[in-house]
């Protein structure tokens, strides 16, 4: 079996496993099946990346040759994102066992089935080379995600899920409209084929409208300011494991889809000219960085604080995109990867605290530094990465982002990036101060250190944050290849 034939299985394995999972009773087997399926998927994605970085892989479903049949088309960019998604899921699952047992005690078969569906959908979006197929996978993953969020133990999870459903569906339908316009104009749905045929017809208002619809639709899924309203509640009230998984994957995939359309399908020399896309994205990105960090500084609920921090971090990624250069895109991909590492680690640490203490409010963190040193140290170290302290992954992506801004002489962007980094210090520091320099009030139960099943995955991610802050060959290499795949030469085979 060649790598090309193996590649679709990273989507198929979780899809099939979800069917199995839905039927399994009890608490152990659904989790075990999910773990095996996810790891299989991650291994396949890991095998695919080096091959896809060399040459674009193409797999035609049912042997119908593209553009008629549905094609999986994988180059460095989507292989990179696929590995990130599957890898994050595989790292998060060992952590999930304890946390899910506590927060979703019943009908775990259905819960894990939804998780596998969401994973399969996200991977499908990433690997597919067919525009309509992307829409379908987007809806598969979204619908599963709504279900996952609704599993939260607080009743506000239901509201959050419903609101996300409304906004998410509108976003996905916008994408569908955009794809419809493109189909009307070109008669094809295959991304590579679209890229070839679009230049003839692209000076029409239909194609321009298509671009606008796709950007707004994906902006919604990406939680780009001002379309971020669904995210804080969804992240706050979802079960901790779901938040951990979503924070590292969902918005990243949405960003990838946006990039794929803007850069590969429409070609940047057109899409950034016909609309003032660069300016709009830059303003939204900076606004997101500021608004997200600002609101995060005042949140009493730490999960929500991290959610707003995600809005800010999405801003960094979009900022990298808005600079329209290899270095800028590299920075965006780097931050996409590194942010997944740091935010997942942070949410895991908070989830661990919730597991031990029962709540994730700042006041519940008081004095925890002494009783749960390993958990809180993990939080502090991952927090350093969010701030962008040297030797952490966060520093590497910010360094590239600043380089990209400087290459274009955008001094004020450098200043803005640094100011928002200082704001990150403030919101991370609130937790550190509460954990180590405040006494635990007598009326709050003392909490001991968390079980190893929660600590080990958290620390693995913390270690990765430092590993990728020191050895940048893999991430920078992958991100550069991804950026070049998008900017240089489109999807030529």
């Amino acid at each position: 079996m060649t790598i090309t034939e193996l590649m679709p299985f990273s989507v198929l394995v979780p899809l099939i496993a979800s069917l199995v999972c839905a039927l399994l009773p009890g608490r152990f087997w659904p989790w075990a099946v999910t773990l095996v399926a996810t790891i299989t998927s991650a291994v396949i994605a890991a095998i695919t990346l080096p091959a896809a970085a060399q040459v674009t892989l193409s797999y035609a479903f049912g042997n119908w040759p593209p553009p008629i049949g549905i094609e999986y088309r994988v180059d460095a960019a989507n292989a990179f994102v696929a590995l990130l998604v599957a890898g994050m899921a595989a790292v998060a699952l060992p952590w999930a066992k304890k946390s899910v047992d506590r927060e979703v005690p019943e009908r775990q078969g259905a819960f894990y089935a939804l998780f596998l569906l969401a994973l399969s959908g996200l991977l499908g979006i990433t690997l597919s080379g067919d525009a309509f197929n992307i829409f379908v996978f987007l809806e598969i993953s979204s619908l599963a995600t709504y279900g996952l969020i609704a599993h939260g133990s607080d009743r506000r999870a239901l509201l959050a899920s419903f609101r996300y459903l409304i906004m998410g569906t509108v976003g996905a339908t916008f994408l569908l409209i955009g794809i419809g316009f493109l189909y009307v104009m070109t008669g094809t749905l295959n991304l590579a084929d679209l890229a070839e045929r679009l230049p003839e017809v692209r000076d029409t208002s239909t194609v321009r409208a298509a671009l606008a619809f796709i950007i707004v639709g994906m902006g919604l899924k990406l939680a780009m300011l001002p379309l971020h309203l669904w995210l804080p509640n969804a992240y706050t009230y979802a079960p901790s494991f779901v938040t951990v998984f979503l924070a590292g994957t969902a918005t990243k995939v949405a960003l990838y889809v946006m990039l794929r359309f803007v850069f590969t399908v429409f070609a940047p020399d057109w899409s950034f000219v016909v609309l003032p896309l660069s300016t709009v994205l830059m303003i939204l990105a900076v606004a997101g960085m500021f608004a997200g960090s600002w609101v995060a500084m005042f949140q009493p609920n730490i999960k929500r604080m991290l959610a707003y921090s995600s809005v800010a971090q999405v801003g960094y990624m979009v900022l990298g995109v808005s600079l329209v250069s290899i270095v800028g895109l590299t920075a965006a991909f780097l931050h996409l990867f590194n942010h997944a590492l740091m935010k997942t680690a942070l949410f895991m640490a908070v989830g661990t605290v919730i597991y031990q203490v029962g709540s994730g409010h700042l006041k519940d963190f008081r004095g925890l530094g002494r009783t749960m040193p390993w958990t809180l140290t993990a939080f502090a170290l991952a927090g350093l990465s969010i701030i962008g302290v040297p030797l952490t992954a966060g520093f590497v992506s910010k360094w590239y982002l600043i380089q990209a801004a400087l290459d274009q002489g955008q001094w004020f962007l450098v200043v803005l990036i640094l100011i928002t980094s200082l704001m990150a210090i403030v919101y991370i520091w609130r937790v550190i101060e509460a954990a180590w320099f405040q006494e635990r009030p007598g009326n709050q139960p003392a909490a001991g250190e968390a079980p190893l099943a929660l600590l080990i995955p958290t620390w693995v991610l913390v270690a990765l944050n430092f590993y990728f802050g020191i050895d940048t060959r893999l991430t920078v290499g992958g991100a550069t290849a991804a950026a070049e795949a998008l900017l240089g030469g489109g999807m030529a085979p």
Partner: protein
Amino acid sequence: MMTVLSFFNYWIVVVLMMIGFYCVIARGNMVKKVMGLNLFQTSVFILFISAGKIVGGSTPIVREGVELYSNPLPHVLILTAIVVGVATTAVGLALTVRINEAYGSIEDDHLGDEDDGDEQ
């Protein structure tokens, strides 16, 4: 006038889309929101189907004596999209039922206020 009329299916699309979108945004009642979402999606389905129609074309089933067929692909796509739409509606309604059980109301404007806490 003729151009307006000859594109009447697209006008329907636009009108339906706006009605649906308005419902989603302006209505507090969750069932009405879901209905609005349905209208919104349906309008997009019509858009696709319209694009597949070729003037004078026949139904896309291969048979003798027919040279011109309508494009079958949009129909197939929209079949899938309808399934997606039904699934979305189902999830939305299921959530509405759960919200009604938890809060005793499905008027979005008033929910969440009573939960004390940390919302901004």
